């Protein structure tokens, strides 16, 4: 991307195309949990709590061969401008599963046979990229809970607004209508650079998608540093 094209494109909140919103992260926010963390991108705030490994209930869901990761994503009713009905829905059910796929590859839970590690995530305030914030908080909470892991994962959304790629999509950008409109690509990667989750809604060329992956790689490294710092500082 040339300097010129970069300066031509204006994001609603004035960010550079490769600039994340301010991130904050904190570990140990829920004393009752075995591990817990909060992660935010600007106005999007996720809280995560981990309980386990513990006996899986109901019993018929037990896997005698290995441990199970079970995620539960939900938005507080007042986290969005138009009140969200409490309780699970199709969207939250899907995101919960996506989180399991994004996180489980780095967990070493084979030895926890018939047991479950529960991850509960609540979105306190939403301004797009909530699933990415949820995954980032969950990864930290799992480490904090002492679950053996090969690596952390970090998650970011790459957007294509008209023809322009941007990092860390906000709500206004998600609703972009000019030109080719908005394409949203949430991506999760390990610190080593393996991809554990990708989704895409919209329209993009193969070439530009390759570019988007590069952008995600760079952004997830930035997120990793924030997660790492919070974990290191929180000991106690």
């Amino acid at each position: 991307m040339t300097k010129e094209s970069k300066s031509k494109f204006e994001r609603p909140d004035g960010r550079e195309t490769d600039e994340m919103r301010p991130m904050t992260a904190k570990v140990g926010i829920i004393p009752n949990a075995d591990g817990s963390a909060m992660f935010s991108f600007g106005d999007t705030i996720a809280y995560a709590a981990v309980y386990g490994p513990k006996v899986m209930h109901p019993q018929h869901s037990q896997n005698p061969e290995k441990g199970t990761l079970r995620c539960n994503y939900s938005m507080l009713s007042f986290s969005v401008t138009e009140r969200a009905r409490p309780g699970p829905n199709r969207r939250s059910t899907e995101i919960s599963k996506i989180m399991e796929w994004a996180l489980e590859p780095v967990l070493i839970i084979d030895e926890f046979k018939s047991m479950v590690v529960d991850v509960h995530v609540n979105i306190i305030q939403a301004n797009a990229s909530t699933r990415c914030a949820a995954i980032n908080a969950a990864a930290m909470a799992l480490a904090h809970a002492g679950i053996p892991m090969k690596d952390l994962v970090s998650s970011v959304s790459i957007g294509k607004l008209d023809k322009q790629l941007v990092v860390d999509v906000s709500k206004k950008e998600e609703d972009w209508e000019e030109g080719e409109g908005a394409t949203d690509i949430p991506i999760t990667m390990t610190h080593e650079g393996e991809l554990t989750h990708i989704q895409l809604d919209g329209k993009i060329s193969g070439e530009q998608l390759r570019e988007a992956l590069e952008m995600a790689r760079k952004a997830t490294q930035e997120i990793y540093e924030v997660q790492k710092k919070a974990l290191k500082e929180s000991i106690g």
Partner: protein
Amino acid sequence: MSEKNQRKVVIPGEVLAKGNEYLPGEGTERRGSEIISLKYGLFEDSNKLIKVIPLSGVYQPRRGNVVIGKVENITFNGWVINIGTAETAFISIMEIPRFVNKNELESVMDIGEMVVAKIWSINKRGIDLSLKSRGLGKIDEGIILAINSNRVPRVIGKEGSMIKLIKDETGCEITVGQNGLIWIKGDSIEKELHAKRAILFVAEHSFLSGLTEELKKWFDENRK
């Protein structure tokens, strides 16, 4: 507390050491020439053996561990005990150091009561506990405190030095279960609560080195 006695904290996936002269210990693995952390915890290098000491995580039962548990159920030949593990733990009447009438198991230990026991076997059916040793048996008085099991070694201290300090300072009898449950018994509730607060102080400051000195200071500041 000064920063210098804070030990180094590492996270999963972090490179702990480079070079083939290092050996991967608990909570780590070798990847190529690097030793990588698999856990969140404190870094330790003892003669090139690299370890991560976890401060969180569930209790991993081991044979020979003394644990504290709660009687959850009574069967025809023993007691089902909850020691905080996923597997159920069991005390058979054969593992009681005296004769027990099969019709009166609840008079020995009833549901809801607490017991100090030793793990003598871990197998596919679960965990078998025994009361056939000194200091084991039903708890009839005192308070029970729960801490994370990974912090038990700090509460006990090198060769039992930390727990001895707490016992001496508070005059309480204290039994520390490896599963993180601790039994405190003193001749007044005040003394028991004093011991409880001291133990929580140690558990909450597990990441410090020179913790015995810190605890001594704590006792000086909190003497009645």
